[in-house]
């Protein structure tokens, strides 16, 4: 490539430039293509993937922070990215069940077919949260404990998935396997170091919480908080007047500290409950913007800061 031979006049210099440009033109697209394309369904998974993949992969996230990932309408550009993807990371446990299978059928990309090594789901790495402290299996009977997809809300699960993901990325792109594993170590170290800090802040909470949906179950378990109930009697169903009146009574009996609601869920009902029972209502994120490990850790920072501030 470097054909710069000394003292041969302007012509050969021009030749050098042309050769250089040609080489660039040939190498550039190949280089860009060589980077594995990783598609994540929700922001937190994209952040974990970016933390592990670093500059060696290209990450696309389908849904955005503040959106309910149960529902998704793909844009043509996103279908196009999926058709070129080398690895697809989904939360699993039913989160994308309504739209991902048909979308995958549509894009016909054999690399990310269900069951192939390019199809990664949280179910590969972790177990569902089960029944929490403060909840009886009766009160959970309409909430299948095996179907809770919000596992990234537990930082320990983030570590487990990051480790599995590093191995999987190593299979997809063996050249950089060492980098991926090393970054998973870093990720694990950073999160492990931050967990005591998060737990300490969350401990400011005085009493159990009521949540709208079951999105915070993993977080509640990780931070050792007590859960008193859900506003929704079952996923996606409007509560009855009796259910709400029972909850209002419980707030007083169980000394509920807070009500938590997702940014995309029915504010009016949660607000009403908070007002009637005189308990504080917090809108807590289940996803935040930001890249890589900083973005993922930023979500917990934001949540525990809010809890701490409003527990005073």
């Amino acid at each position: 490539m470097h054909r710069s031979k000394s003292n041969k006049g302007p012509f050969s210099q021009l030749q050098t430039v042309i050769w250089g440009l040609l080489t660039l033109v040939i190498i550039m697209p190949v280089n860009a293509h060589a980077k594995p394309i990783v598609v994540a369904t929700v922001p937190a998974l994209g952040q974990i993937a970016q933390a592990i993949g670093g500059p060696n992969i290209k990450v696309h996230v389908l849904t955005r922070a503040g959106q309910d990932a149960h529902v998704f309408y793909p844009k043509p550009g996103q279908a196009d990215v999926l058709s070129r993807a080398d690895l697809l990371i989904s939360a699993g446990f039913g989160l994308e069940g309504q739209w991902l299978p048909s979308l995958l059928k549509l894009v016909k990309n054999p690399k990310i077919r269900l069951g192939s090594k390019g199809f990664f789901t949280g179910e590969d790495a972790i177990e569902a949260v089960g029944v929490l402290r403060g909840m009886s299996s009766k009160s959970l009977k309409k909430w299948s404990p095996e179907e809770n997809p919000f596992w990234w809300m537990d930082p320990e699960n983030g570590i487990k998935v990051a480790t599995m993901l590093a191995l999987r990325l190593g299979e997809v792109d063996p050249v950089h396997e060492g980098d991926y594993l090393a970054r998973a170590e870093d990720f694990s170290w950073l999160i492990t170091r931050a967990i005591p800090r998060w737990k300490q802040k969350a401990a400011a909470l005085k009493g159990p919480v009521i949540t709208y949906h079951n999105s915070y179950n993993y977080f509640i378990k990780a931070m050792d908080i007590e859960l008193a109930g859900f506003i929704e009697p079952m996923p996606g169903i409007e509560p009855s007047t009796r259910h709400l009146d029972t909850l209002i009574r419980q707030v007083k009996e169980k000394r509920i500290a807070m009500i938590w609601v997702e940014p995309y869920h029915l504010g009016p009902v949660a607000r009403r409950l908070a007002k009637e029972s005189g308990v504080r209502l917090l809108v807590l994120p289940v996803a935040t913007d930001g890249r890589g490990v900083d973005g993922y850790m930023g979500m917990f920072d934001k949540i525990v800061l809010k809890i701490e501030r409003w527990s005073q």
Partner: protein
Amino acid sequence: MILITVMVATLIIAVCLPVLGQRVLERRVVFVDLALAQLAATGYALGMALHIPGMIAAAGITAVAVFLMALMDENTALPKEAVMGGVYAFAASAGVVLLSVLPYGEGQLMGLLFGSILGVDWMGILRLSIFAVIGTAMAWPDHGNTYGGRLRFYIGLSLIIVPAIHAIGVLLVFAYLVMPALSVWRHGKNGPAWQAITLAAVASVAGVLISDLFDLPPSATVVLTLTMIAVLIGIVIYFIAGDEKSAGSKEKKKASADTTANTTAENETPESSTEAS
């Protein structure tokens, strides 16, 4: 507590929406409420995109639409229902495109479109009744087929429908608007307003009680109860009205028996509620 506010809120819309529904039905513009609600929601999204208060944007867009809608003559050769349907589809699509460029818009628009009757407190009930009184006062009286008359009708309609959908959701508003009026409809014309209001009020009380008793979602339960009562009374009224043509004494007897059964059902709500369930 929640039970009482839910019952009062449904009773308010049970008093005002059926009579407006009769106006809407005779003009054959049933889609107007969906169109108005969707325009308001899209206006709200537009407000968020342009960083102006959502409520102001919603009111502005709805006002513009109302001024345009009033341009359409009542005796136009155009199928008005199709125009309203078209406006609805346009507004909904504009909303979706707007939301796709907003990172946090989705939940807010859904919240605006699908308010919940459970979220209405006494303040909300007061607000709802004020809008209901003003809206009914403007839209109920007959209006001439002039621009001013049509404008008064559409403004009154949007004053009541947009806040109502925001507060209690599109399902209840749509059902209360068309079902009672449809049920008392006879010989191609509107029936007496008191009948429509009475059956709507009975459905409110019965539906809310059934929902509380059986731990069911209130909006859908009230609409189901309203449907059943509306169909039942619709059938009864059909027999009474059919009476005038066929002078069969059997049918007359049956019809009068039905009406007495119907009035007792109206008086004894718990009974009608168990029947409906």
